């Protein structure tokens, strides 16, 4: 993927991008996953427009409507599509806003982790030697510990809160990006176009980011999708344990935690529906990621 095919006399040129798209579309499952994810993302972005109620606005909540089953109607006129929680919040609205937080934290942390990890991976591959060894030692150390442990350590030291969760996620994730990018970059580094760029005496920053990085993208994209799913799952887990986002702005994990105590008395909907939303989000991202990995894998002959 280092050059674009020259235009030929064929009516429709098959650029690498077009080929990638058509190969991706070979899996219907992945397409379904993509469609579902886009739907979810849109729902989260436009939550304020779709949701019948703003769950953060205490004035809109009626405590008398607490713990109502799905389908009950509220005193204000609309139906509680998926029931209410113990504060009288409409589950559907709560889920939409919770999706916002879950996706926001998940994607946000993935982007930052990608930025940090990619930069370090590129630097390690470019400079080699002691810098490479040092960075890779750090990566290995980091990766030998389970993600939840690292997150726990950070949250134990820094305390709870959205920003701390994001920070914890970034610390957990950067190493995966660093390792993958370094591996790809070390291969690409030896190619002629990098040599050519060096001969032009371009500054190393420019070579790294304008020339090397674009060609390390395929595995990076695969890892990024997987990491977003992991970040969302990890944030949900941390919030469920009470170590994540604050109660005032619950993510899906916290919503599930809130409903946990009511599970045993049969009021399943408080935990169940946010759980489904979380599930569908994660699985759809994983489906897309799986197909991306198959399509972008250089070892599979296509």
């Amino acid at each position, binding site marked *: 993927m280092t050059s674009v095919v020259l235009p030929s006399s064929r009516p429709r040129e098959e650029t690498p991008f077009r080929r990638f798209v058509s190969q991706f579309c070979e899996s219907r499952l992945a397409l379904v996953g993509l469609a579902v994810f886009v739907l979810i993302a849109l729902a989260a972005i436009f939550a304020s427009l779709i949701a019948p109620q703003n769950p953060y606005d205490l004035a809109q909540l009626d405590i008398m409507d607490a713990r109502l089953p799905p389908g009950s109607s509220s005193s204000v006129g609309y139906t509680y599509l998926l029931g209410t929680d113990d504060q009288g919040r409409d589950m559907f609205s709560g889920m939409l806003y919770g999706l916002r937080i879950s996706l926001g934290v998940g994607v946000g942390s993935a982007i930052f982790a990608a930025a940090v990890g990619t930069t370090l991976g590129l630097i390690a591959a470019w400079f080699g030697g002691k810098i490479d060894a040092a960075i890779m030692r750090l990566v290995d*150390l980091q990766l030998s510990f389970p993600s939840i442990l690292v997150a726990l350590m950070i*949250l134990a030291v820094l305390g709870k809160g959205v920003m701390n969760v994001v920070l914890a996620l970034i610390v957990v994730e950067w190493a995966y990006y660093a390792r993958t990018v370094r591996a790809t970059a070390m291969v690409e580094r030896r190619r002629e176009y990098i040599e050519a760029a060096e001969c032009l005496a371009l500054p190393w920053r420019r070579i790294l980011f304008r020339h090397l990085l674009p060609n390390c993208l395929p595995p990076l994209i695969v890892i990024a999708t997987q990491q977003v799913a992991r970040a969302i799952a990890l944030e949900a887990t941390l919030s469920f344990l009470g170590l994540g986002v604050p109660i005032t702005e619950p993510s899906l*994990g916290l919503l599930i935690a809130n409903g946990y105590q009511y599970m*045993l008395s049969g009021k399943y909907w408080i935990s169940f529906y946010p759980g489904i939303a979380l599930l569908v989000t*994660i699985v759809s991202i*994983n489906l897309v990621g799986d197909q991306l990995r198959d399509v972008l894998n250089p070892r599979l002959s296509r």
Partner: protein
Amino acid sequence: MLAWLIRRLIQAIFVIVAMTVIVFIGVHVIGNPVDVLISPEADQAERARIIATLGLDQPLWRQYLLFVIDALHGNLGRSFVFNEPALTLIAQRMPATMELAVTAVLLSIIIGVPLGLFAGLKPNNLISRTIMAGSILGFSLPTFWVGLMLIMVFAVQLGWLPSTGRGATAPLFGVQWSFLTWDGLRHMLMPALNLALFNISLVLRLTRAGVREILPMDFIKFARAKGLSPARVIFVHVLKNILIPVVTVVGLELGSTVAFAVVTESVFAWPGMGKLIIDSINVLDRPVIVAYLMMIVLLFVTINLIVDILYTILDPRVRLEHKA
């Protein structure tokens, strides 16, 4: 061989030391050690006394040495909440967690390997495809959610299994274990399965990939050319080749499993180390947090070391490498 072993040991010690430094920095530099180590309920005199004992007014490197020496003596502070040595608290709860983790790991092999074998030998079978789809779910689903679903289905709706707690225990070697009582086993089933789910998916996929890689190899064809029964070809020739990487991964995952027990223990109210740490973080019982982190790092490094040694023993080719 000995040279490799010594190098490996030094590596392990290095990691432990690095962890003590990190934890130390976390507590004494980033956090406020006064807050961390002294209960908020202590009065002025008590505070002064503790500051003097712990040497919090001394230069950092001295504090670090004190910290390490204390740790080596097993003194990692006293819990604010329970007013007992933190290490004792953790040691009391370790059997429950280890029981759960080891059961989960065993389950992952007992369930994962046969399923993976089947999926690998008959890849186009409908059952195989279902198994593989299930494995994707197995490691993408958040553990806590699966736990909740298990409780909802088996405890609330069907009433077959108890939803929380550890149930009855019986002593062995002076420690209380659940698996020795029927009630204890009933209580352990769901949490162990929940914890094992991720590992089962992992082992399953690994086994299947291994089978698909090994089956077309020449030595398998040669084994068949010798006239061996298919059972022998699969269970001796194929399996032995697969088991080595699988056991390695599973061994390494044991540490991860112990860490992830945090989630399962919270969902099922299982009285292990994990639940303790979550509760402690929530009430800011910091000595316990510090003690837990140190213990788990120690556990981790030890497990990794043992797995490495086991791998050397199991795979004859690696043995040669490490001899060189």
